[in-house]
């Protein structure tokens, strides 16, 4: 099996890794780079738990061979924390609004919401629902996730009352 050396920037850190051509980005992140927040729920591109940001855009990492993102910037849930290492704005909103139950879809939700709010910083409730519609959650019924999107989008950064 031919191996390729690729260079990724993962959560702002340069990583050089040798991977077989068929190695999925999800496996590369999880097993080669120990970014275990990238969860694999279906390996078919349906559930969205493995969503990461590739150059800022949400992508299913279980559908991308790692070699196809050579040179890209990858952001996982670990990379959505605040500069001080604490929870980032979206992460805090998810906790506060009870949008986290089993936690398995949560990293995919975190990066999806972060990317969504960059494009749509003041979403309506309908738009907030769109923000989480690309990731399946079997626990919450989505309502608390929608609330978290709206909370994170508040002008005070979700920090007030």
């Amino acid at each position, binding site marked *: 099996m031919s191996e390729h050396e690729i260079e990724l920037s993962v959560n702002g850190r340069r990583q050089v890794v040798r991977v*077989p051509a*068929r*190695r999925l980005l999800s496996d590369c992140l*999880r*097993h080669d780079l*120990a*970014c*275990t*927040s990238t*969860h*694999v*729920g*279906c*390996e*078919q591109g*349906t*559930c969205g*738990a493995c969503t990461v940001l590739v150059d800022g855009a949400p992508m299913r990492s279980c559908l991308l061979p790692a070699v196809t993102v050579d040179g890209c910037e990858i952001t*996982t*849930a*670990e990379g*959505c*924390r605040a500069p001080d290492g604490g*929870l980032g704005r979206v*992460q*805090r909103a*998810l*906790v*506060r609004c*009870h949008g*986290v*139950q*089993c*936690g*398995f*879809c*949560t*990293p995919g939700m*975190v990066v999806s919401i972060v990317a969504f709010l960059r494009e749509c910083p003041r979403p309506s409730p309908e738009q907030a*629902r*769109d923000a*989480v*519609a*690309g990731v*399946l*959650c*079997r*626990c*919450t*019924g*989505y*309502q*608390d*996730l*929608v609330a978290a999107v709206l909370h994170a989008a508040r002008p005070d950064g979700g920090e007030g009352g």
Partner: protein
Amino acid sequence: MTAPHVGRPVTGAAAERFAAGTGRFLDDLGSGAAAAAFVRSPHGHARVLRIDLADAERVPGLIAVFTYRDLTGGAREPLPVLIPHAALHSPRTGLPLADDVVRHVGEPVVMVVAVDRYVAEDACRLVGVDYEPLPAVIGIPAARRADHLVHPGVVGNVAACMVQENGDARAAVSAAPHRLTLRLGVERSAAMPMECRGVYARPDRDDRSLRVYSATQAAASLRFALAAVLDLPADRVEVVAPDVGGGFGVKLVHPWPEEVLVPWAALRLGREVKWVEDRAEHIAAASHERGQQHEVEVGFDGDGHVQGLAVSFWHDTGAYTPYGIIVPIVTSTQLPGPYRLGAYRVEFRSLYTNTAVVTPYRGAGRPQGAFVMERTLDAIARFLGADRAEVRRRNLIRPSEMPYDQGLTFQDGRPLVYDSGDYPALLDTALTRSGWRDFATRREREPGKRLGIGIACYVEGTGMGPYEGARVQVDTSGHVTVTVGLTTQGQGHGTVFAQIAADELGVEPRDVTVVSGDTRRFPYAAGTFASRSAVVGGNAVALAAREVRAKALRVAARALGAPPDELRLADGAVVANARAIPLATVAVLANPLRYAFDHRTRQATQFALDADPDRPPLDADDAPGLDATAFFSPIRSTFSAGVHVAVVEIDPDTAEIALRDYVVVHDCGRPINPAVVEGQIRGGVAQGIGGALHERIVYGDDGRLRTGSLADLLLPTAHDVPEITIDHLVTPSPLNPLGVKGVGEGGVVPVMAAIASAIEDAEGIVLDRMPITPAELWELRQKHGG
């Protein structure tokens, strides 16, 4: 005084870890372990003629390949029948690896162990298995016809037959002024947690022990099961459930074949082995539920009072019965719901089919029971031209009739006695919150739209035994650790148990750490299922914390020279009038020491204590530390209840079904954490919506699985689940000290029934089965003349 924490929407530490991306799920462990993968049957029913391993064995990186012939000891035996029952006359379970016959798609045939999963799957693809296909038995009609048998010698494919009766129901039906007959059906769906199953085994050759991590709902029981199957002393086996990404019942079954095979292979190979299930395996090889067909005879009077109800149903149990007949027992006993039936008879048969095993999925047979009862009441209302809600009201058990004995035996082997509840108040509140009475006006305001409103009620037996336990420890920093034997899969146990302990001990929930699902820490437990953890585990936590509180007061009383009844616990201290002694200090004083190792412990050594020289440092009936273990064993289940109202809007052309409103009014006794309660309810309703409108597991008549991916099996997305309005009524349970009832499953129970009722109301077409898709509704319209 510390404010009470029980009753508040506290958030927990686990949510912060998960949001940060630092959860530790099964596949996050064991990065150096060898990877297991399985060759599974592509056939529903076939004889295994020959297995050719030659090509697979040449794959570089392969470690081992195992077939049934290689297995040893208990791994060669059929898997356990977890819940034997006298009515289960023909129990059958599979072998960990199939020997001569496979009985469903996905049944494991060959186990491959390799350096990583990619290589293991390469080898799986090179294993040659010759099968002789046998006729597959798919679906309840084929199982009843029994032209072919799933198991030789199991006549009629009948695994179990059971009858329960309260009064002479058939005579009551015959004598009633009005009678109706209904045939109703529910099709297959499944729990589908976002994390699939997984097992990681670590043998330790030096001390001949085995640690097994599993994404399980029943760590303590899995430990004893593995010790038995692998013939190891239980004290050499440890089972740990790490963070588990949802369960909803499927992870309760144990040991799964893979839970035997992975530890067996790890011991055989003397190295760590891990198997992480993929979604295709999960859909084919884990468990399903819901498939039942019912025949109902009901007799009632002109007011709609049910005088007799006789139900016969057939339950599709899949290829094996590892979990016995719990699902149909629950259906048969929870079917009467909150209603006083003149007489009730239920008879069921569990039928083998060549499909994945059927074991409890959230609701565990109740959604089918509620569907049947509520469809029946809608049929009565239609027959009489009466309001559907009014017919329900007339049949509801009244608060003055509590406790109410349904005259049946429940799934815990105990009498089915409703402990408390106010069902008419639930109904009234639901009608008010949903605008039931003004719905005709709403319809007129929205002409051109096909709107419908539906209602369904349920009762859920929760919090059954046998027991759960908890250990509460206060360490010398004042930090509290609560350790429970049950497991957690996202239900917020860490939060609610911390709230309970915090209130008992006068500390903040953030000062309490909750440990669960680790047999090294707490060996005795039944597990997390049947909406029981808050009830059984929560009360165990309260009881253990109360013991710790009593000891803290005793120790502090001695230190302060004050009588214990003048002391109280608050703000992390024992307080007496103007004086206070921190809980940390009390913890030090509660453990007489020989050795000091920091400034705190200096206070507790033998030369520092102002102790009575004529008494031993530890009283005869005492133990060291602020440390207590308690168990709670309920006398029987406690019964939650609720009413759901759904409003649908259906496209007149495409028959697309949209949920406009959804109202839940429920009573789970005293809510420990309303946000956790509401999260459980919303998640349950979402799964109910899936089961009503989207999800269906389909097998072809040849036994092949037709819905093998999440692209076929349509789990609801954020666009499929509406905002859910929730109202709580509180009738404390008299059966436990906290007065709580379970809420883990209630949300899912009446959803199919409420949505069917709403669609029927919108369309004027009788629905007799679920799920229903727009295409099926469109077909129904054509059949009924558009």
